[in-house]
């Protein structure tokens, strides 16, 4: 995953007490101005530029020409693009629930107070987050390999014939495992932090009413951290749609399994940097951005509705 941003917020904490009218002034701009300036340069300007680029096409005859929405119609009919989208959709449908499910179970286990050595578990399971995607992918890539890897060793030792995890049939699952390994601890920590904020008086009341642990989990804990779950889901979806680093680094080891249009991001990258099709690449990136936002928004709505 490329830049899985830690959860920025869906809703901010109940805003600080509204300042008095007379304190409303431009002073705050002195503090936030620098952030806004850089933000405009590295977020807003590229978005605008991207939209501009997507409306042009570099033609052999006539140079750069305004083509309106032609690039978009082309992309919507582009099989290569939709195959890549299908691949990341499949990836996210399987990998995200597994990753978040494990993270949730671990967070609940940590929060239950039933573990020996709790803080050891918490910090150890979080550690992979500190490992760069490059290193994580290299490690797992070597381990997957039949030559130096564990798969080869196991096959040799037990006479088994485990499948080649870098073959076209298996490589998506192999990438899923790497991404899960990288982010399960991070998501666990988000859930765990949210669980710690629940007032303990709720548990006491539930216990007096005769609720067991499972009841407390399903009726108190899970509803209370729904916000965190929705945010983690949204950011995992964004991460899946952006999948690039892992397949790109794994590619030297699995060249026939990972094509240059393996994910939408890979496709835009190849279009732009190997094919010099900047305009079309920008178009594909925008469509992916819009698609991501639609899915993220749908998840958010669904998450909210359940809460109601």
């Amino acid at each position: 995953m490329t830049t899985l941003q830690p959860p920025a917020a869906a809703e901010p904490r109940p805003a600080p007490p509204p300042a008095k009218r007379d304190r409303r002034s431009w002073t705050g701009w002195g503090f936030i101005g620098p952030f806004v300036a850089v933000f405009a340069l590295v977020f807003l300007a590229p978005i605008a530029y991207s939209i501009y680029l997507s409306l042009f096409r570099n033609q052999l005859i006539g140079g750069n020409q305004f083509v309106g929405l032609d690039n978009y119609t082309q992309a919507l009919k582009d099989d290569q693009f939709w195959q890549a989208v299908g691949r990341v959709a499949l990836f996210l449908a399987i990998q995200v629930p597994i990753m978040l499910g494990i993270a949730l179970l671990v967070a609940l286990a940590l929060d239950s107070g039933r573990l020996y050595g709790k803080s050891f578990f918490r910090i150890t399971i979080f550690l992979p987050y500190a490992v760069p995607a490059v290193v994580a992918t290299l490690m797992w890539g070597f381990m997957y390999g039949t030559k130096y890897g564990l798969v080869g060793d196991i096959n040799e030792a037990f006479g088994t014939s485990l499948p080649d995890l870098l073959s076209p049939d298996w490589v998506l699952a192999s990438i899923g495992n790497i991404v899960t390994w990288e982010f399960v601890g991070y998501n666990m920590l988000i859930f765990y932090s949210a669980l710690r904020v629940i007032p303990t008086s709720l548990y006491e009341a539930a216990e007096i009413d005769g609720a067991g642990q499972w009841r407390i989990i399903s009726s108190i804990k899970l509803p209370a951290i729904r916000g965190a779950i929705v945010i983690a889901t949204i950011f995992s979806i964004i991460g899946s749609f952006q999948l690039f680093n892992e397949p790109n680094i794994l590619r030297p080891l699995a060249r026939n399994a990972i094509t240059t249009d393996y994910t939408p991001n890979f496709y835009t990258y190849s279009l732009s940097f190997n094919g010099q099709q900047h305009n079309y690449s920008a178009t594909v990136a925008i469509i992916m951005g819009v698609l991501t936002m639609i899915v993220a928004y749908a998840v958010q709505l669904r998450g909210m509705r359940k809460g109601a």
Partner: protein
Amino acid sequence: MSTSVAAPPTKSASPLRTPRKKHNPGKPKRSLLLTGLMALMVLYTVAPLIWLVINSTKTQAGLGASNGLWFAHDFALWDNIRTTFTYHDGIFVRWLLNTLLYVVLGAGGATLLAVLGGYALAKFDFPGKRGIFAVVIGAVAVPGTALAVPTFLMFSKMGLTDTPWAVIIPSLVSPFGLYLMWVFAAEAIPTELLEAARMDGANEVRTFFQVALPLLAPGIVTVLLFTTVATWNNYFLPLIMLKDPDWYPLTLGLSAWNSQAETIGGDVIFNLVITGSLITIIPLIAAFLFLQKYWQSGLAAGSVKE
């Protein structure tokens, strides 16, 4: 004057720990089964790291000849480390220094901007405040890689590609850091304290540095750590921005070494890739372990409360 009123920052940082301790002492019985399951999870987490440590002790020949989960006959760790640092005129050292440069300027700058901005959002009312929040949160949902190509083209026109600035400038913005600092500042800094300082005649800059900053310490450590991870681990941005290996960060350098095996006549140096990987992850893991008290409390304060 104002310095004397600074409350210990830890107080506001860990409001969540203490009450939990009192909760029916000794009630939840510790479970061996649950601990066992968690141990399996830890095994999954650390197995690749153990693999990395073991295999960084092997020579290139040893890597192929020995079992991945145990040491080879020759113990080549020190030799590997030396070769990693000296290979190709010490390019690894150069990458390490580059990474440090990107982290200091990128993550440091991002943290500074987030602290200033978060403080403004938490403690000032100013025109455009709501708009800023909406735009920043909206922009977070835009996939970072969708921005990569246009950012590259823009920077290329400005003559910034293939310079450290192409990596540093985009690293300066951390929407998550801004959000975290906002939530943190809203809780950790009592508004009365600021008003008292202003009443005493301190100007805004002085109030910020002497009153607010000390109270923000755990939040700052948290944001700094997360922006550091983001910058240290950054791969995609340098990949598109940098051509010259002299400006590569560690991540890009390691992946270049890895694909070197593919090029015809290229030196196969998987032992250096593995040892270099190990050297790359140690500083961050150490930082997380040493600072865990701070960042965990900072994160807890920023977690979504409902």
